[in-house]
């Protein structure tokens, strides 16, 4: 091909101020194969694109090089432009004069010289380009939602309501996540269980949703529209079909003193248990680590108690393979363990508790039926100190970031305390009150002005015990840093929100990124807040950063909308940048010798084997075969192949060598 047009963009000042663009265009005109070259201030603008289209027609161009910004930015724009002018999109190449040249060098002749070289490379490539057609791939119209907190519940229901199938995978034995543990929720103080339970029941009844609790994603293959997930359904040791949820077994289990995770360790549970009364599904699970049948090889009381013979000690984990088209990750968060701040006495003094423990006390379904008590002696505390930012916004003690929800839930806690016990006193130590949100600041004002919660701006240096009281020692920075000491009956720490356990391993399995703290990373903080860098995988809720319920639900619906849009399409088009094993006339058939090194090198498992048969159906040769649906065009197989039998469309060996030789 030898009728190439070159278009040099100034990108305003971005390229134009350090690279002499007209000079680049002039020099290109001298290069063999170039029949037209020009420069323009903004090629990505409509008039700019029209120049390209016009030139294609006027000069019967057979290839185009646009020398502009990164192809990540505008390659699609220019490829669309050449298609409008009747040219195959893959005959247009972009030379990156901005990120690779003008932004990183001073204005100088050598900068312009480098720009010319960059264009020359693409020119040599484009001369050898072949027209390519986008690949169409089908879409599996089922979504996988990982995590059954309020984020996962919302996303699953929205996708299911739009008519697509959903598989919801929850790691714990029941749906609900942290929201199920909460008492009342800011800023409206409506009961958390009351608004969540109906949604959990909706999930379990929805004809489009398959709910898998006590399960985790073990492995993921494939790509957008065509993922293959392996799910480990852990053995509950209960036959779910037979169990009626009557609860007879729960009463008979003799292993009693196991810390109850749902109640944040404030109570105990048995080895066979349902996490909480409203649990969905209402099917118990046997905690093998604590069950006498497994640990001591005796005890079958639950078996005897069960009227439907549902206990199944021999039940094994199952691996279930599912095909899905899109994935929503909604694995939530955890709260920081308190060893980071022993000066607050957590672990030493039983009456220093976390915010989540306070939620359990305040909850009507909690260990005290909603009466605020303290762990040491079960008395109702008179004076309670709340310490905000326990571990947040302080790299020395925890994390740098703001956990965002604590200001609001601390105000809520103080308010609930005052509502439940009118004679109590509530103090809050804080750094700043961050209450930006609809009706949020009003909520905090209400706590201060109507309920008389005392806010003290300052940090706490130490909590220690004296005469049966917890002395909270801190500073009041609004009173000139005066030290304050408050004798409290209960101290509540608003501990920082952290990425959930196992989140980084899950991220690795799914090939999605994490940020510096370990929260899952969005593709763009502003414009792609629910997408990840892996197409077809979306994020919802607190797995991405600390967030409250309204924001979590909004994001879950956003992710669901993305999924619904994807699953509504009949097929996907993919870039035809895929590798192919060459074919030659008989008797060679292919340069491939069938060593299959490429098969083991391929990170996407896109390479299989193909038999070449003669007319009688007898195998002459076995060679590698690349599945274009799975190939991601990474080129690893090309580099591995010893006989150079593999080429990547759009980036053939010939093209790459031509580029290098032109320098």
């Amino acid at each position, binding site marked *: 091909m030898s009728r190439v047009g070159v278009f040099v963009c100034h990108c305003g000042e971005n390229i134009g101020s350090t690279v002499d663009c007209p000079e680049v265009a002039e020099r290109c005109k001298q290069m063999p194969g170039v029949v037209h070259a020009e420069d323009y201030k903004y090629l990505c603008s409509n008039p700019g694109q029209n120049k390209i289209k016009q030139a294609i027609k006027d000069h019967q161009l057979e290839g185009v090089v646009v020398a502009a910004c990164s192809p990540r930015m505008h390659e699609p724009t220019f490829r669309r432009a050449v298609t409008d002018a009747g040219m195959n999109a893959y005959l247009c190449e972009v030379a990156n004069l901005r990120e690779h040249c003008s932004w990183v060098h001073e204005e100088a002749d050598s900068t312009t010289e480098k720009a010319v070289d960059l264009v020359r490379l693409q020119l040599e490539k484009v001369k050898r380009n072949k027209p390519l057609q986008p690949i169409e791939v089908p879409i599996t119209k089922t979504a996988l939602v990982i995590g059954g907190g309020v984020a996962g519940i919302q996303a699953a229901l929205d996708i299911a309501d739009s008519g697509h199938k959903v598989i919801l995978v929850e790691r714990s034995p029941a749906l609900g996540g942290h929201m199920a543990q909460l008492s009342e929720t800011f800023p409206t103080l409506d009961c958390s269980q009351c608004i969540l339970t109906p949604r959990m029941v909706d999930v379990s009844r929805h004809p489009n949703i398959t709910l898998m609790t006590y399960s985790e994603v073990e492995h993921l293959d494939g790509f957008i529209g065509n993922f293959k997930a392996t799910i480990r359904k852990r053995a509950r040791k209960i036959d779910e079909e037979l169990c009626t949820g009557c609860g007879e077994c729960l009463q008979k289990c*003799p292993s009693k003193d196991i810390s109850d995770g749902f109640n944040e360790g404030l109570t105990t549970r048995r080895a066979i248990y349902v996490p909480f009364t409203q649990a969905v599904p209402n099917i118990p699970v046997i905690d093998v680590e604590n069950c006498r049948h497994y640990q*001591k090889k005796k005890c079958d009381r639950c078996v005897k108690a069960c009227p439907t013979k549902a206990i199944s000690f021999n039940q094994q984990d199952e691996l279930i393979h599912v095909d899905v088209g899109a994935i929503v990750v909604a694995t939530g968060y955890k709260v920081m363990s308190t060893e980071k*701040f*022993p*000066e607050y*006495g957590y672990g*030493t003094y039983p009456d220093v508790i976390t915010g989540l423990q306070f939620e359990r006390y305040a909850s009507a379904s909690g260990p005290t039926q909603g009466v605020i008590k303290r762990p040491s002696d079960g008395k109702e505390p008179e004076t309670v100190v709340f310490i905000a930012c326990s571990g947040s916004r302080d790299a*020395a*003690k925890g994390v740098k970031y703001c956990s965002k929800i604590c200001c609001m839930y601390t105000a809520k806690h103080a308010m609930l305390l005052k509502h439940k016990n009118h004679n109590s006193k509530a103090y809050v130590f804080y750094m700043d009150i961050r209450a930006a949100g609809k009706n949020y600041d009003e909520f905090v004002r209400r706590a201060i002005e109507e309920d008389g919660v005392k806010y003290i701006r300052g940090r706490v*240096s*130490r909590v*220690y*015990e*004296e005469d049966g009281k917890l*002395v909270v*020692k801190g500073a009041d920075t609004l009173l000139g840093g005066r030290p304050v000491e408050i004798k409290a009956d209960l101290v509540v720490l608003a501990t920082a929100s952290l990425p959930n356990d196992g989140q980084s391993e899950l991220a690795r399995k799914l090939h999605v990124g994490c940020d510096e703290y370990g929260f899952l990373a969005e593709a763009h903080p502003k414009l792609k807040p629910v997408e990840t860098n892996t197409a077809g995988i979306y994020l919802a809720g607190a797995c991405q950063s600390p967030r409250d319920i309204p924001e979590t639900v909004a994001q879950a619906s956003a992710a669901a909308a993305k999924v619904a849009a994807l699953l509504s399409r009949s097929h996907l088009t993919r870039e035809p940048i895929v590798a192919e094993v060459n074919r030659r006339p008989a008797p060679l058939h292919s340069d491939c010798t069938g060593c299959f090194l490429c098969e083991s090198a391929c990170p996407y498992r896109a390479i299989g084997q193909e038999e070449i048969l003669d007319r009688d159906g007898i195998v002459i040769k076995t060679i590698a075969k690349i599945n274009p649906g799975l190939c991601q065009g990474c080129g690893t197989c090309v580099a591995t192949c010893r006989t150079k039998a593999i080429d990547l469309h759009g980036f053939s060996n010939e093209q790459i060598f031509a580029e290098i030789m032109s320098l």
Partner: protein
Amino acid sequence: MRIGYYPGCSLKSSAREYEESVRALCAALDLELVEIPDWNCCGASSAHVMSADLALGLRTRNLAQAEAAGLDEVLTPCAACFSHLAEARMELADNPNKRQEVADFIGLPYSGRVRVLNVLAVLDRYRDRIAAKVKNPFRYKVACYYGCLLVRPPEVVQFDRPENPQSMDRLLEAVGAKPIPWACKTECCGASFSVTRTDVVANLSGRIVADAVKRNAAAIVVACPMCQSNLDLRRPEINQQLEQEHGIPVLYITQALGLALGIDPQQLGLQRHLVPVELPEPEPEVVTADDDDDDD
């Protein structure tokens, strides 16, 4: 094992018993102390208020001397000296120009290689050896008092937790003691106001003594000559302030560990304290019963 050793002025004068006990304990642990040749005062509490250059020069000269002697680490038992040397090291760590300036000023090359360690950091490495050598378990309730300079500021000292340090607690636990949870672990004793405003020291140190006594500690354990002297030497003023006679002794960590290892009290310099070191009967040994869970 060998380690560099910077005693500083206090350990040669008012805190002789600290030096004696450091040396006795290190000998018992087979840790050879190599005193920095021709060391000088770290500038104490005055140099840095007079001239920043002088203070930095004084501090750095000690580190430079240690380097010249081929040492990698320097044990600095005095908390104030430790803080000063560590600060100089940090100040020069990322600043080659300044480093050169100071080297010219003191007339010695200085690369910044030598690390500065306080007594707790060094002993922490020998915790297992200490535990193995215990002869007379130190079975007392003790108030571990770290004061201000051992653990703060965190960026400078790079040691333990600034608000709730644990290293001394761990060491004393290793010899059978029971460190109490108390309010004053890292409160200030009044430091060098000892001379100019004794009333302030009596007040601040008084709180520390009172809290330790109230929680039935048998001794206050320290790792700083300044803290020791305020709690010990100023005891008459403290008692006056508290309107109560408190006889609780104030031991250096090296003395407490030395006693547990069976080192002679004279060698540990216990006779030099102003508040006599009279310890009560040790607490009875607590045997924790193995709870065997029932089978029903």
